Structures are given as C-alpha cells and as structure tokens.
C-alpha cells in the first residue's frame, strides 16, 4: 500500500467517519449529542477494557522484552513536554503559564488515539506488542508532572500545590481504570479472561462498536469548539499539526531502537504525538489557572486529535515501516 492508499483506508474507517458525522452534526447545528453520563460511561468501558486486556497480555510478555520499550516510553514522557514548552514559549511567544499548560497536554497521551493506532496497525497486518497498554499507562502522568513543574515557579501564593494536583492525576479515572485494569487482568489470567474476554476484547465487535459511539460524541465536542480555531491564531494551528509529526517520528524511531515491531513503533509514535484531553485539563486548570483554556483545549482536541486520527497515524506507520527496513 502506498501512502495515499493508507490515508484513504484510514479516512474511510468507521471511527474516522463517526467522528466526521459528529462534527458535521454540530456544524449544521443539529440538536444531537450524547448525554454526558453516557459519554462518561463509554469512556469508562474503553479504559477498563484496555487495562484488562493489557494485563492479560502482560502475563505473556517477558520482563526483558518490556524493559527497553518501557524505558523509551518514560524518556519520551519527560522529553515531549520540554520540547513542547520550548517551542510554544520561544517560537510562539506564549506566556509561561500558557506554555506549561500546553506542554502538560502534549506531554501526556490520548487513550482514544492509542486505540485508533492499535486498530490501524492490526488492519495493516502489523499487530503491536501485547504490552502496549502498559506503556500507555506509563506515559499518562510523567508529562503532566514535568509540565506542571515547569510552570510551578510561576505559581502564585495560595495556588494549589503541585503535589496535591498530582494526587488527583494519579487517582483520576484514567489511572484507576487503566492501572487497576492492568493489575486485575494480570491476576485473572487466561482462564478467567476466556469468560469475559468476548465483551472486553479490544479487537472485538463490542469494543469497536462502543468506540464508534464514543467517536460520534468526540466529533460533536470538537465541532462545538470549531469557532475557537479563529481565536487561537495561526501559530497554534501549525503547532497542533507539526509538533505531533515531530514527536510521532521521534517516538517511532525510539520505538524501533528499543526493539519494538513496526506495529509497536507506530503505536508508540502515535502515543508520543498525541495530546491528552481527559487527565490533563482539570490538572492544568487547578494548577495554572491563568493559562487560557481556549488555547490548550482547542489545540489538543480540535487540532491535534483529528489530525492524528486522520493523517498522523498512517504517517507514523509509514515512518516505522521505513525505519524497520520493510518496503
């Protein structure tokens, strides 16, 4: 498949089209949207299933196989918020608070983008390693911590201490479901997994169907914020697409060096390229209250998320394939 075919296959996938439909619904001002509690319920299912299956798969992996990729992941988690901060602060001339806030989002990871990348590589016949959800969990919080530390010297008297906010990040629903799911999945093993697997299997019909529904609402949410694109300016628009390309390429390369397969390197690249919009926003809002939410939410949700979903993932796959020496 050449790059154009890859892009085409990706654009016509059910999740991409569901996202587009949600977006369109909001643009034509349809009253359609998922009830907030349903959206929340779906996100709980997705994260819990991801954690559980990751835990079951973890049992099949040797420590030796995971050590390199895990180290690479933590390295990326520390590096990407710093590069983001420097680019936004120096080139974009954003304030310290705004730069640190954006860095927290781009240093962390979007689980939904991760799921999309895993599905994409599988469809290309290059399934990623089973322990990838473990890496996802590892990448969730370091970026937020590093970015908040960057912004911390800027914090004023009486702000909530970073330690307190990190407690919230580490005990938030993403961490409880992902990390808790990994542990539970690891403990139950294959025998029990066989009884619940058909419901939670992340390549199965239930999971993919729920993901489609979830994507509809993500489209609606992004559509509702489309108007903010005019407020954030050209720099963030370019940043929201070029920064993921840089981080994605770097992540795919580091993944290869750390010994991941083409599929695994693609997924790691996608993780490095993605921006968090579940764990990071509340943490940032409480720690850096004078950072403008329009900047970080619009960049992460309206620019980078669709960019990775539609264009980024096939590009990182192409980079990983090329680095892996395959045609």
């Amino acid at each position, binding site marked *: 498949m050449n790059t154009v075919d890859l892009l085409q296959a990706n654009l016509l996938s059910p999740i991409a089209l569901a996202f587009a439909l949600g977006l369109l619904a909001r643009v034509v001002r349809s009253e359609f949207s998922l009830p*907030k509690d349903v959206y929340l319920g779906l996100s709980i299912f997705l994260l819990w299933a991801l954690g559980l299956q990751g835990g079951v798969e973890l049992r099949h992996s040797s420590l030796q196989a995971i050590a390199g990729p895990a180290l690479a992941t933590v390295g990326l988690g520390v590096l990407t918020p710093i590069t983001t901060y420097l680019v936004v602060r120096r080139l974009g001339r954003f304030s310290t608070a705004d730069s640190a806030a954006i860095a927290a989002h781009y240093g962390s990871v979007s689980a939904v983008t991760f799921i999309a990348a895993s599905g994409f590589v599988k469809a290309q016949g290059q399934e990623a390693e089973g322990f990838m959800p473990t890496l996802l969990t590892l990448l969730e919080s370091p970026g937020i911590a590093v970015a908040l530390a960057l912004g911390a010297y800027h914090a004023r008297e009486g702000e*909530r201490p970073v330690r307190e906010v990190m407690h919230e990040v580490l005990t938030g629903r993403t961490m409880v479901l992902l990390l808790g799911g990994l542990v539970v999945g690891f403990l139950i093993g294959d025998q029990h997994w066989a009884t619940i697997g058909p419901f939670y299997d992340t390549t199965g019909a239930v999971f993919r169907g729920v993901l489609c529904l979830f994507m509809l609402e993500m489209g609606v*949410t992004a559509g*509702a914020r489309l108007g903010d694109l005019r407020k954030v300016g050209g720099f963030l628009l370019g940043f929201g697409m070029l920064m993921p390309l840089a981080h994605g390429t770097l992540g795919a390369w580091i993944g290869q060096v750390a010994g991941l397969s083409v599929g695994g390197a693609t997924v790691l690249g996608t993780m490095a390229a993605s921006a968090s919009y579940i764990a990071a*926003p*509340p943490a940032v809002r409480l720690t850096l*209250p004078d950072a403008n*939410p329009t900047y970080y*939410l619009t960049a992460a949700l309206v620019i980078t998320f669709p960019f990775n979903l539609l264009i980024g993932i096939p590009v990182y796959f192409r980079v990983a394939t090329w680095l892996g020496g395959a045609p």
Partner: protein
Amino acid sequence: MTPVPMTLVTIIAEHVLREPLTADLRRLGARGYSIGEVEGEGTRGLHTQDWQGKNLRIETVVPADVAAAILAHLAARYFDDYAMIAYTSTVAVLRSGKFA
C-alpha cells in the same frame, strides 16, 4: 416553629473547583451545602470548561458573618482566574440550629 432569618450563598462555578470550594466552605464555617449541575452561558460565552461535566451550583445556608467571609474569600481567591459568580439572599429557615 418560627422561621429564623439566615443568608443563602449561591455559587456558580466550573466543575473542577468542586473539591477546593467545598473544602473552603467547611473551613469558613458552613455546616453543609448542596450541589447541582447546571448549564448556561455567561460573559465568557458558553462555559468553556463544561465539556467533561457541567458547571456547578453550590448552595449553602449560613449566618450573615459567615456569608460575608465566604464572599470575601471567593473574590480574593477565584474571581480573577475562574468562571464564577456568587450571590446571597436572605431566607427564612426552620431548624435554624442546623445552620449555625
């Protein structure tokens, strides 16, 4: 039972502030509170934070001096950076011992 006058403090705020605000209320002397989720539009346009949860309406019934302390604290601590409004009204309550 004769109703006794008390002050009702109503705060509309971003949902991320749920924990800090309720802790503040307790610390400043409120004996209890109620929280509801609300939607709306204000000077900042649609509530910018409400994509992962609606805005909160927090109500607490307190003596006048506690109400004054709460308002002063909100103004000093939150008004600059967060989408928030707060107002008071005088209400008549039964079982006034529950509030002071």
